[in-house]
């Protein structure tokens, strides 16, 4: 377990931002160069889940928590099959780790996933900078390149706006999901087909889905079939789903035109639940466009209020775009607001049996205050089944 490497042996690395700001630190993970939008996450736990969240595709993640890597990595705490963040920026990479479930170090894990990172920089200063200047493109490099060149190349990367990243992270083939949630001592629960076959089918459109969403859909009593992002409404309806789930994912929702089109065609035909990018796509489909936030919401401590019962939930957030409240059309209810900046956190159309949330009720990592929404989706499907039968 002792994996002592001297900092001095690490290569120098630079982080260059599009606006010309440069930080010098040391290379962690794979050596080389990487690029993406530089964002920050204020969660104090769960770095492995965050790194493997497909929503972070083409983003370089700054962790505000100074020590990262303390509990190493393991095979359980993953939200997809690989690291999706395009780079990692930390104050202090823990080269040693200590946790009974750990199977390796974060540094080795980054190397295995070919993820370039930088450590030893003043991450608080970087966050203050991003807060005032906004999230922007950047490059991390441990190559022998001048800062000027890196800045120029970072500036040339443009913006996140208009980028469809969902197609790239989505599954290429449909598949069935059978895993339930994790519990201490016994790990993840596996469900057998005989049991799942009895359940209502939910088709989950994978724009970059986190596994814990699928696990919670299973735990809610549903059967889950995951389909590629570009699956048409026709193909989905052919599966005779009892409900459709629109997943989270990376990039600009407005650029996922095929997803928006599919969703438009599904509305009213089947109960729908959307999370994060899925929520934004649903909003677009209902006629409410999105806009880019200055530096986004990424963390595990955002207060969201259900405006119907005024209850506050502490939520997990990871989004750079938000639904524009002022253009939400009549008939669509804004059910939830983010209390930090009053942005839209939830939409609902009761008659169409659809609802969505901007935050991440599946947590992983983060507080699980909103996990009841999966149960709500199940109830919605059940109630639809009975009304469908009745009609």
């Amino acid at each position: 377990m002792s994996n002592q490497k001297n900092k001095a042996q690490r290569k120098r690395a630079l982080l260059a931002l599009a606006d010309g700001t440069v930080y010098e630190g040391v290379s962690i993970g794979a050596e080389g160069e990487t690029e993406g939008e530089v964002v920050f996450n204020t969660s104090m736990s769960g770095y492995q889940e965050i790194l493997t969240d497909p929503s972070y595709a083409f983003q370089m993640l700054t962790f505000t928590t100074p020590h990262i890597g303390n509990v190493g990595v393991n095979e359980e705490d993953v939200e997809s099959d690989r690291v999706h963040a395009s780079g990692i920026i930390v104050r202090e990479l823990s080269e040693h780790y200590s946790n009974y479930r750990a199977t390796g170090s974060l540094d080795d894990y980054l190397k295995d996933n070919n993820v370039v990172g930088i450590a030893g920089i003043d991450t608080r200063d970087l966050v203050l900078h991003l807060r005032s200047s906004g999230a922007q493109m950047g490059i991390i490099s441990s190559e022998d390149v001048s800062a000027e060149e890196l800045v120029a190349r970072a500036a040339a990367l443009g913006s996140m706006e208009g980028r469809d990243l969902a197609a790239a992270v989505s599954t290429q083939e449909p598949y069935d999901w059978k895993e339930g949630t994790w519990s201490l001592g016994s790990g993840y629960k596996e469900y057998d087909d005989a049991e799942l076959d009895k359940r209502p089918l939910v088709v989950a459109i994978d724009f970059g889905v986190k596994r814990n969403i699928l696990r919670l859909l299973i735990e809610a009593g549903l059967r889950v079939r995951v389909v590629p992002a570009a699956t048409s409404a026709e193909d989905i309806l052919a599966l005779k789903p009892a409900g459709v789930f629109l997943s989270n994912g990376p990039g600009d929702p407005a650029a996922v035109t095929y997803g928006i089109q599919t969703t438009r065609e599904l509305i009213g035909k089947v109960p729908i639940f959307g999370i994060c990018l899925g929520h934004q796509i649903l909003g677009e489909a209902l006629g409410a466009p999105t806009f880019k936030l200055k530096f986004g919401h990424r963390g595990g401590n955002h207060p969201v209020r259900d405006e119907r019962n005024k209850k506050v939930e502490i939520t997990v957030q990871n989004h750079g775009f938000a639904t524009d409240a002022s253009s939400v059309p009549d008939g669509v209810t804004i059910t939830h607001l983010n209390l930090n900046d009053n942005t839209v956190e939830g939409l609902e159309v009761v008659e169409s049996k659809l609802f969505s949330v901007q935050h991440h009720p599946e947590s992983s990592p983060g507080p699980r205050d909103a996990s009841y929404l999966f149960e709500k989706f199940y109830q919605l499907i059940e109630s639809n089944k009975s009304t469908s039968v009745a009609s």
Partner: protein
Amino acid sequence: MPKRSDIKSILIIGSGPIVIGQACEFDYSGVQALKALKEEGYRVILVNSNPATIMTDPNFADRTYIEPITCEFVARVIERERPDVLLPTLGGQTALNVTIELDEAGVLEKYDVELIGASVDAIKTAEDRDSFKKVVDACGLESAKSFVVHTMAEAEQAVASIGYPFIIRPSRTLGGAGGGTVEGPEEFKEKVAWGLECSPINEILIEESLLGWKEMELEVMRDKKDNAVVICGIENIDPMGQHTGDSITVAPIQTLTDKEYQLLRDGALSLMRAIGVDTGGSNVQFAIDPQTGRQIVIEMNPRVSRSSALASKATGFPIAKIAAKLAVGYSLDELPNDITKETPASFEPSIDYVVVKIPRFTFEKFQGVEALLGTQMKSVGEAMSIGRTFPEALQKACRSLETGRVGILGGVEEQTGDIELLKKQVQKLTPERLYQTARLMQLGVSEEELHELTAYDLWFLREIRKIVDVEKEISVSGIANIEEALLRSAKQLGMSDVRIGRLLGCKEDEVRAKRSEYNLRPSFKMVDTCAAEFASNTPYLYSTYDSAPESVPSDAKKKIIILGGGPNRIGQGLEFDYCCVHAAFSLKDAGYETIMVNCNPETVSTDYDTSDRLYFEPLTLEDVLAICEHESPFGVVVQYGGQTPLRLAQALKAAGVPIIGTSPDSIDLTEDREQFSSLLTELELKQSPSGTACNEEEAVAVANKIGYPLMVRPSFVLGGRAMAIITNEEELRGYIAESVEVSFDRPVLLDRFLSEAIEVDVDAVCDGDTVVVGGILEHIERAGVHSGDSSFMIPSQTLSAEVLQEIENATRALALRCEVRGLMNVQFACNKSGLFVLEVNPRASRSVPFVSKTTAVPWAKVAARVMAGDSLQSLHESGLYGDIAIHKSYRDAVKRIPYVAVKESVFPFVKFHGADTVLGPEMRSTGEVMGIDDTSAGGFVRAHVATGMKLPQSGSVFVSVRDEDKDELGPIVAKLVDLGFSLVATEGTAKTLSAGGFTVERVNKVRDGSPHIVDRLNEGSICMVINTPEGTGPLLDSRTIRSTSTQLGLPLFTTIAAAGAAVDGMELIAQGQGFEVCSIQEFLQLL
């Protein structure tokens, strides 16, 4: 939903005197709550017996009762004030306990007082082991296997099922008194019996041992809409087995995955709901098996706590303030986050730094007590530090302790290289364990082996290894050629200049110069609750060696830095924090920008809104200089934080820092024996004969010249550390042998001890021209008892007008001659031969809060303005202080005080099994209480009851006094007999009493064999003990009597004067009129 409009008045109960397990964190919480509730327009009534608190300042509540926190007295307050509601969750266990008593006595029902914050059911469920366990089960959580027992027989059955080792946890005790680990059958009987004894309801829990498990705490809050949040997770570096108050802790939690952490979070929130904490904060403690992750709920406190104060300081989230607002009906989303102002309080703080809390111990004060830690809390204070990384925060915490420690290494642990010895030592739970562990690392022992020996998590050990490794690199370097990169990594690991200097073989200032050459300076960053996600306008700052500076000093021209007192310890605690807070308030009012520097998380001074800017930093020269360089203040106040900042005065001055108030040279003048003696001669003031000595032979020679008995002590002391009264040469030689260790390079001071003298404390303010005497405090104990331990009263009761005038004249002369600018405290002793000056301290003293509270003059505020350059005359004209102080003569002014206020001290002897309880020149009290009444006897009884003691109404009193006290004993025992008490005495005293015509029962001394006095004490046939011991030698007989009495909770008087005052009080109780209560605001209106 806004605040409740159906309630108008709110009763708040404080936590009383500072004791181990309940310190000034409850003043901090209380002050926040009082401010929050007043701001909402409620009428707030406060009961707290502790006069040194900020919360009992008359302007914080509408009515403040400085009365004992007992059911009887609080019931009187309720009867008189008829509050609509009682908020019981801000005054620690004391307030919860008295609330339950009030409920059980029907008082709450009778006067229709509603409980807010927590219900009686919730309090009882959380307290009662059985019901708590049921709730834990119902929440789907796990408790440790355990049994509640009330008898030895039940205990035996329980152990048969659990096995050894097991833990004892007594019910309803403070800081776990009476608890402990039982390793094997040989310890069974003694420890179980002691635990049962300590519990007020004779109930203990016998529990499976979780020794070596991880220990975690969550601070949670909930509002009436059932919104619930976790404010902070805290990880104990010291694994299970050591009381969390005695553990080094770190925030945020470092060694849990998110999956494990969310289980804790869900568990803590569901527990809070199930227990029924409707609004406010709670603390939930968990143990986690490091091998399997199995989680066990340890306990829950449905109130603000020491941990919630720590969590507030660690995150910037004001738990007590928010708890108060939630209690009156607000919900979390209706309240703003105080730090960002823009975002709501309904969130969970995210922190981008590491906080380390480290406890401060004072075992050296309790001779004969082994420094062992366990489930019963022993520490008297704590320091907190903030760094960007764990090693940085840890080393800053070490040097915040002010024990001379310069980092994780560099203390006594380095005096041995004996690996086997150290390995044995680290397996014992002691305050030195982590340092010894680092030492072993330095000696080449692997982290894996150390983990096996200590159960410290490997993550922490490997972080400490980084420090050890860099130290090694530095030690082979030199100051001339040390590389910038190496020096930078040392600083980033929190290494102090002093430590680096020692490793390099150079002075601290050479390291500072080197840093300056490399432009290696700390940057100051903000604590903002949100990891920089939102802008913050509250300058709550810490230093770190990170690349970019964040905090920019304001361009205010008039900035004053106030240096705080650091961690609480015996001799330096709440009273000094009170003064620092008053300085901040006063100077802020006068238009200065105030800057507080302190590292004690329990205090009001480290609340982010006490000063304009707060630096949460160690109070060492290096750290303070860095702040001064950053801020360029107009002045720095060193006289308010006790000995801590005073020690820095000369060095700060030498570095060009402007010290305001009395100059460091004047301070030194009063500390230098010879200079001070000649000054007294010049002023024609008397001093008891004295001398100094640098070694044993010199000391004996000096002693022979000035005569025994002697008072001896090392120079530069606070709280009487290592002081003693010596009656013969043999004792003197013994003392020198020990005390040289205490202060190696400073001489020992010897004074002729003044017997039969009354001691007097004087607090005064001087502006260079005018001297105003604030208070002359007459001690109840005779001279020889440390002034911090003595009881005293205002106004003085026995000193003649002439003596008062003489004291006042002497005080004026001393203040002017010493060129005091600000506060000064003088201690006098007077006996038949006249008035003697004992010592002069040109700084804030422990008695300032008491004097201020009883004379209605905010002396610390007045003096702060004087230090900033205002004259007393102009301050008086501006209305800062009222009539009582303008009198040219204190003697005249004090005549207008129509009441008597008595201060009594509170001692931690019950926590130090076997310590002698006799009072002497070494201060050992942790806190104080005040009793205020029309008469001195009434004041004394109130004070005495407030210390937690019950004065008996009938029974047998054991009397054993030294020869000198025998004359004074007569009138006291006569009163006891009149009151119907019978007398029990051993031979000598019995003879005296018989000769005086009293009926007395003789009892054997211990050495005469059973049945002896200790047997009688243990069987419960003695109700009170008067025992004034002879000399200071280890008189085991009387020591056993005293420690037995203390452990049994019997009223025990070790000075004849205190016994006299108590008996006067008992007379008063016997008259049976009961005690009226009156608020301090009403008392002060009489002036």
